[in-house]
């Protein structure tokens, strides 16, 4: 093998550590070119990976659905709700709790327990609001009085229009 063909071989390898001295001028050239190509390749890979992963990440994040802002709702009829009882009603797509107290007053709260998102219920025997999931208790003002709930229930305003019970956000 003559020196020229050996040089060619080295050029192919991109490694010129053993090149003859006369090639010293181009010694630094191949590593730089290689670095440049590696840089291009690396950037290409990162770019491609990003172009593939970004739509996937966006895809798995559910879109925000715009809900029609609902400020009041007819939660039920006065004649349907017995004294000292409660019922769940739909406030938009969230559950609300409507209570008719023993004295005949109406109260309405968000039915979503402030602890871990369960749906609460009215307990007529204890005259309190109770969450079955972790035994959370709220009084008739919606204040958290027992168990793990950290905050009171959101309270709504109740008006009666004829037989209709209208609940609205304060």
């Amino acid at each position, binding site marked *: 093998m003559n020196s020229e063909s050996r040089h060619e071989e080295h050029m192919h390898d991109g490694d010129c550590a053993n090149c003859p001295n006369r090639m010293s001028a181009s010694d630094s050239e191949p590593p730089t070119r290689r670095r440049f190509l590696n840089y291009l390749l690396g950037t290409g890979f990162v770019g491609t990976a990003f172009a593939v992963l970004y739509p996937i990440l966006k895809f798995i*994040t559910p879109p925000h659905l715009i809900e029609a802002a609902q400020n009041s709702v007819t939660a039920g009829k006065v004649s349907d709700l017995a004294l000292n009882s409660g019922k769940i009603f739909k406030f938009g797509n969230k559950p609300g709790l409507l209570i008719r107290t023993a004295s005949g007053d109406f109260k309405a709260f968000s039915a979503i327990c402030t602890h871990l*998102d369960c749906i609460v219920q009215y307990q007529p025997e204890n005259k309190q609001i109770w969450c*079955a*999931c972790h035994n959370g208790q709220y009084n008739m003002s919606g204040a958290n009085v027992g168990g793990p709930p*950290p905050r009171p229930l959101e309270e709504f305003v109740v008006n009666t229009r004829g037989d209709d019970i209208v609940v609205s956000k304060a």
Partner: protein
Amino acid sequence: MKVEPVTLWLDDRLGIGSIAQLARKKEIPIHRHSIWYYFGGMTLFLFGVQVVTGILLLLYYRPSAETAFESVQFIVTEVQFGWLIRSVHSWSANLLIATLFIHMFSVYFMRAYRRPREVTWLSGVFLLLLAVGFGFSGYLLPWNKLAFFATKVGTEIAGVIPLIGKPMLRFLRGGEDVTGATLTRFFGFHVAVLPAISTVILAVHLILVQLHGMSVPPGLEGKNLRKMKFFPGFLMRDLIGWILAIGVLAALAALFPWELGEKADAFAPAPAGIKPEWYFLFMFETLKLLPPKILSFDGEVLGILGFAAGGLVWFILPFLDKHQRTRRRPVFTVIGVIVVLFIVTLTIVGFVS
């Protein structure tokens, strides 16, 4: 037809000979703790039962909020042996978690996670997480009331984690609330994502077990222990266990068929006496016992972060127990006993309360 050339032909192309060689070489040390060696294999067998019964259920199950409950109802009432397949799937899932826990704690107490088996331990804990993920996602699929609230609470717990909590909650639920979108997602996790990841991690776990052979507890290390060939001696004993497991599963399915309950309703209060699956009970009870506020933090946030931190410590255990050669490490045994007692006590409290 001659048999020899066929095996030779296959060996030539697939290298079966070397696998057979490996099987012949594999030995199980025999000592007073050998019984614990069976629980890994038992967990693997139950995983196989899950794959088979899961694929069968897929033939009839329809994953949407409108059809899921009815399709499971159809499986257990109309499809021939549907009640059996569905009950076996549910029971086997629970037994799998139980054998997995036994396997993990036996590895812990025999300190089998020591060098060079750290990665085996890491892959094992990862498999535990996957199994819990399977359990949590599969629990929702019948779309009944209990499952609905369990999923609400479970995903809400994920949402409590600072910073990543809220995006994670939306990712898990497929929106702000638990809806049909959540069911579709959980179905995808349960039958595609988790099985794919589990297959890879399980392969790593099993290859590592073959690579390192069976671990011997520190107290027995270096002693001249009797050995049993894996094939056929140990495998035959494994098989007896598996046949017993089939019997137990069939008996449980027949005597205590898994209930379907009532269809989920997003506008009904949580039913009284609601409880999560038994393997979440100790965490459930802990969250129930924590006060609403600890200093200025929400009790449940601290509880959840505490469990996350505990899980992380458990995961990196092999790197904490560094003294490879010390025979006794009472600290780690004591910690292990405390962990077991904590889990068992609070699980019992959860059952009776």
